[in-house]
């Protein structure tokens, strides 16, 4: 059901953990839907993401996308990190099953939430960053009716 890359990132997730006194922390998702992702960012004075850690409650795809997303933003500057979309995460993982696409949205939102937290803490505005939704399932289309 999952690609080899997804299984690799699930079995050996990169950057699991916490960062004490992180520059920004973002938590998105909800327990109701079964996935919660938290991203910690350590950003230096030049706006470079020095370190990133995550914790995730969720399925295999949720863990793998968290892991891949942290890899993709590590060492990048803020604007580059904003370009890490859910599509980029999915491509880097060689795709996800259709029912798991929302997991990759969660990863993108978690990074944005952590950046938002960083901006708020430092009283700055990050161009192109919107207030992240706390619930990624908001506005999702209803399932097609059967029968």
């Amino acid at each position, binding site marked *: 059901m999952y690609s080899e890359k997804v299984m690799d990132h699930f079995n050996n*997730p990169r950057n699991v953990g916490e960062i004490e006194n992180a520059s920004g922390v973002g938590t998105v998702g909800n327990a109701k839907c079964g996935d919660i992702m938290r991203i910690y960012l350590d950003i230096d004075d030049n706006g470079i993401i020095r370190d990133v850690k995550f914790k995730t409650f*969720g399925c295999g795809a949720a863990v793998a996308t968290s892991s891949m997303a942290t890899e993709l933003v590590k060492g990048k500057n803020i604007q580059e990190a904003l370009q890490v979309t859910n599509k980029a995460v999915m491509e880097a993982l060689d795709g996800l099953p259709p029912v798991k696409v929302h997991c990759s949205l969660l990863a993108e939102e978690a990074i944005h939430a952590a950046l938002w937290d960083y901006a708020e803490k430092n009283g700055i505005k990050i161009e192109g960053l919107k207030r992240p939704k706390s619930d990624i399932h908001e506005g999702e289309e209803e399932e097609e009716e059967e029968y």
Partner: protein
Amino acid sequence: MAKFIYLDNAATTKTAPEVVEAMLPYFTEYYGNPSSVYEFAGKSKAAITKSREIIAKALGAADNEIYFTAGGSESDNWALKATAEAYEKKGKHIITTKIEHHAILHTAEYLEKRGFEITYVGVDENGTVKLDELKKAIRPDTILISVMFANNEIGTIQPIKEIGQIAHEKGILFHTDAVQAFGQIPINVDECHIDMLSASGHKLNGPKGIGFLYIRKGVKIRSFVHGGAQERKRRAGTENVPGIVGIGKAVERAMATMEERTRHETEVRDYLIDKILKEIPYTRLNGHRTNRLPNNINFSFQFIEGESLLIMLDMDGICGSSGSACTSGSLDPSHVLLAIGLPHEIAHGSLRLTLSEEITKEDMDYVAESIKKIVERLRSMSPLYEDFVKKQK
């Protein structure tokens, strides 16, 4: 050889070798159509008769009350839709429960769209149907009560005898989905006042694609599949002779081994339950502690999600299942776990393990170690656990 411990027998079972052996001649040797007149076809017809007798005897029913179908889902669909159609002049109200299999729930929803009213009775925290609620739901226009014999996810055995008695006294038809219970625990249709009963072959070491519906003599439901005159004109289509032989053999085997199997499985089941509850904190057993199917175990591990747990168990060679949303293809966790009152996040962290007679305590030692290691690892990655630990401090 790598470890392989199959603990998903509620999903399906291994077809027993003696069942396969019994079926084989009916593919290449006795392949005649049972409806044909020549003597050769008589072999096929006789095989069907024999299977029907075995099944009828197992239920305390008459031979002509057993109707072969393609499986449990067809039997459930037939029982509900055909009863609704046959008795709609009497009333359009049906009572069922919140914890039924989707073969019942989705059929009930289908009927709702066609003008029937359905009452879904709730269950207590152990998953036992609330009898007082069921009694209160009965109306003059109630035509059918359908309650599963035992739940497929949490294993709780329902008070079927009491429900049958209630239905009988009120003159309401009573159907039970016994797909998980038949072959595992004794069932007598007269003692429980059952009018219709669904069962499936592949849950009791028989083949897939075969099941039956027991219909008490006098119940006026019509054919669901129209065509030839098979199954007393109630279920058309050339009989699945090898399948019918297979389910017959499987039932014979299940009845003969039931006592010993129940004793063994209960012992192994309780061994794992006690071990896990003792060794892994923030864990609960779902379903009734004792009044449950001998082969069913269902845990919820707080702070972790079921699919991740299943994938990791798979890597240790252990097959299980979960009521997590991620394994159901929807965003909601199992309706059964929600019905027993579990909050969503705990329902997502459920694990169902269903035993067979082949599983030993030694296997369970290995399984327990694996679960322990995995739960610890997933918790160390869980933001919910992190929050919980911080709150404790």
